[in-house]
C-alpha cells in the first residue's frame, strides 16, 4: 500500500532525516510505499493532526508543544530543566522511559493515535540581540515563543516579555527589532537562518526540543502482526539513526554559523549563571500541575523516576 507521512520540518532537518530513514526501512522490509509531506505541504500542525485522526494521513510527526491543545499532559516537555542536556542520557530515557512508552502511549491512544516514537531534536538555545548572562538581561526583552501557555509561563518566569508570533513573522520581526529574541534547537537556527538577524546564542540548558511520531490508531490496529512489527521496527531503527545523527550535530551546525557569521557570540551559561533560570522552573512546574491536575502530576512523577533510573 501507499502510506502518507507528514512532518513539521523540511526534508533535510531532523524530523525529515527521521522520516527519510523510516521510509527507507519500511520500503526495504515490505512492499508498502511511503510518501513524505514536509512542512506546510498539507497544512500546519493542527491540520495535520486532524488529518491523521481522520485517517487521511497514516503517520504524522508532531511536537508535543503543538499537541498541548489535545493532550495537555504533553506540555510536560516545557517544564524547564526537567530533561537533561546530556544527549546520551536523553537517548536512554527515550528508549526506556515508562512515562513515554506506557503512559504517553495511553494518552495518545485516547486521541485515536498510536504513539510510535518520541525523540529529542537537540538542546534549545536562545538567540538574542543583546547578551544574556542572567534573567535580568531578559528584562523587557520581547521574546518570541510558540503560542503555548506553559512556554509563555516559562518565559514570564525568566523575566522576559513573551511575545507569541506566527512562525512566518519571526525572521522579519527580529530584523526590524519588533522582537529581540527567540528560542530553537541549534540545527534550526542554522537551517532557518535565524542567526542572520540575532547576535548572541545562549545555552541555558532549560529545555530540549522533543517531537513525537505517531500513526492513526485505527489504521495501525488494522495492520497484520507482521506489518505492525515492521512499522515499530522502522520507528526504532529511525530513532537509533537519529541518535547517531544528532551526535555532534549541534556542534557542527554551530561551527557553520560561526563560519558564516564570525561576529556571533556563543555562550554556555555556568551553573551559577543558570541559578535564576532554575529557580523560575519551580513556578512553571506548579503551573503545569495546576493546568493538568492529577494526571499531569502522575506523568511528572514518572518522568522524574525514569530520568533517575536512566541517569547511571
Amino acid at each position, binding site marked *: 500500500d501507499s502510506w502518507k507521512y507528514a512532518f513539521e520540518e523540511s526534508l533535510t532537518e531532523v524530523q525529515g532525516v527521521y522520516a527519510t530513514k523510516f521510509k527507507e526501512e519500511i520500503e526495504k522490509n515490505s512492499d508498502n510505499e511511503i510518501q513524505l509531506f514536509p512542512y506546510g505541504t498539507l497544512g500546519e500542525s493542527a491540520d495535520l493532526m486532524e488529518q491523521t485522526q481522520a485517517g487521511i494521513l497514516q503517520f504524522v510527526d508532531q511536537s508535543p508543544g503543538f499537541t498541548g491543545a489535545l493532550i495537555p499532559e504533553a506540555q510536560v516537555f516545557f517544564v524547564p530543566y526537567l530533561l537533561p542536556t546530556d544527549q546520551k542520557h536523553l537517548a536512554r530515557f527515550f528508549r526506556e522511559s515508562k512515562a513515554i512508552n506506557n503512559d504517553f502511549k495511553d494518552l495518545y491512544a485516547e486521541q485515536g493515535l498510536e504513539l510510535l516514537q518520541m525523540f529529542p531534536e537537540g538542546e534549545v538555545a536562545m538567540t538574542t540581540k543583546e547578551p544574556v548572562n542572567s534573567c535580568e538581561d531578559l528584562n523587557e526583552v520581547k521574546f518570541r515563543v510558540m503560542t503555548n501557555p506553559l512556554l509563555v509561563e516559562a518565559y514570564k518566569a525568566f523575566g522576559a516579555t513573551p511575545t507569541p508570533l506566527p512562525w*512566518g513573522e519571526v525572521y522579519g520581526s527580529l530584523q526590524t527589532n519588533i522582537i529581540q529574541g527567540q528560542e530553537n534547537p541549534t540545527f534550526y537556527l542554522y537551517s532557518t537562518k535565524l542567526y542572520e538577524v540575532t547576535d548572541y546564542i545562549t545555552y541555558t540548558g532549560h529545555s530540549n526540543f522533543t517531537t513525537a511520531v505517531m500513526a492513526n490508531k485505527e489504521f495501525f490496529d488494522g495492520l497484520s502482526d507482521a506489518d505492525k512489527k515492521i512499522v515499530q521496527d522502522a520507528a526504532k531503527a529511525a530513532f537509533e539513526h537519529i541518535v547517531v545523527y544528532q551526535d555532534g550535530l549541534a556542534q557542527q551546525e554551530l561551527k557553520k554559523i560561526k563560519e558564516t557569521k564570525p561576529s556571533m557570540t556563543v555562550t554556555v551559561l555556568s551553573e551559577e549563571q543558570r541559578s535564576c533560570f532554575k529557580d523560575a522552573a519551580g513556578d512553571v512546574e506548579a503551573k503545569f500541575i495546576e493546568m493538568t491536575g492529577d494526571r499531569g502530576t502522575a506523568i511528572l512523577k514518572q518522568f522524574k523516576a525514569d530520568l533517575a533510573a536512566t541517569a547511571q
Partner: protein
Amino acid sequence: MAIKITAIMIVLLLAGLPMMIPLLLAAFYGFYELFNGFSKMDFMVQQMLAGIRPASLIAVPMFILAAEIMTRGQSANRLIDMVMKFIGHVRGGLAVSTATACTLFGAVSGSTQATVVAVGSPLRPRMLKAGYKDSFVLALIINASDIAFLIPPSIGMIIYGVISSTSISELFIAGVGPGLLLMVLFSAYSMIYATIKKVPTEPKATWSERLDAARKAIWPLGFPVIIIGGIYGGIFSPTEAAAACVFYALVLEIAVFRSLKLIDIYQIAKSTGLITAVVFILVGAGAAFSWVISFAQIPQEILGAIGITEMGPKAVLGVISVSFFIGCMFVDPIVVILVLVPIFAPVVDAVGLDPVLVGTIITLQVAIGSATPPFGCDIFTAIAVFKRPYADVVRGILPFTIILAAVSVALIFFPQIALFARDLAFR
C-alpha cells in the same frame, strides 16, 4: 486526475461562474476521487479555513481600510496634488509616479493585494482624469504592485529561505536588482505609452505652487513616515503599520480636515469587509484546491513525466520558472512556494544551482503569476475594488507580461542581474 481537474476548472471558468466555484468543484472532484466518495469532504472546509488563517493576511483589510479612508477623504488627493505639481509637465509622469508608488508601497507593506488597493484607489481616478485608458491604468497598477514580492521585506522570500535553508539576507539583496529593473522597464513602457497615445501634460508648475501643494500635503506625508519609518524602524509589523495608518487616517479626515463623518466610516468599513470577503473566499478555495494537488502528488507525477532529473541547470531553471508561474495562476503564492520548493529541492541540489538565484527566479515567477490571467490574487483584488469586469481588468496586461517574461528569461541567462549585488555584499 490532473487532466480532469484542469478540464473542470477551465470549462466552469469560461462559463462565467463565480470564480470560487471552478476551484471548489475541482477540489470536490479531487476529494471524491482520492477518498472514493464523500467521506472526507469536511477536510475541504478545513483547508479553506487554513487558507485564510495566516496572520500576514490581516494586513490586507487593514491597508484597504486605510486607503479607502484616505481616498474618500482628502489625504490621498493632497498627496497626489503635490506629486503632480512636480511631475505633471512630464509626459507619462503620472504613470511613472504610479509605478514608483506601487513599488515603494509594495516593498514596505509586503502585500501586493494591499498595494493594488492602497495605491490604486487614489491614483486610478487621477490617471483616468489625466487621459490614460482604464485598461492601461489597471494593468499598470496590478503589475507594478507585484514588484513588491522582489523588494525586501518579502514574505515569499522569507518562506523560501526558511524551507530551503537559504540565506534570507542574500535573497533580499538579490531581489533588489530584478525588482528595480522591472520598475524601470514599466516606467519606460509608461512613457512610451503616454507619448504614443498623446496623453496630455499639465503646464509646468511654479515653485510657489509647488511649495503650496507641499504645505497642504504636510499632514498626509505622515503616512509614508508611519509605514516606512514604522516598519524599518522596528516599531510595527506591516500589519500593525496598516492598522496605525487606519487610525491616523481617521484622525486626519475626521478631526483635522473634517472631510468625513462617522456614517462615512461605517460605509467605508463595510465596503472594506466586502472586498476582503470576496478576495479571501478565493484564497480559501485556492488552498483547498492546492491541498488536493499536493496530496495526490500531481507535481511529482508531472515532473517525473518530463524527466526533470535528466536536465541541465538552465533547463531546470526553465522548468522551475514555468511551474511556479502556472502554480501562481491558480493559488496563493505562499502556498505554491510551500508545496513546490521541497519537490524541486533535490534537483536544484543535483545540478548545483545557486539557491539564491533559484529563490529570486521563483519570487519573480510568483509575482508574474499573481498578475496574469486566468487566476491571480491581484487580478481578483482589482476586480473587487474597482468594480470592473474581468475582461476590462486583464485587457491591458499583455505588454507587462511580455516585459516580465523578458526579465525572467534574462535572469536565467544573466544571473548577475540578481547576484551582482549579493556578491558585492557577501562574497
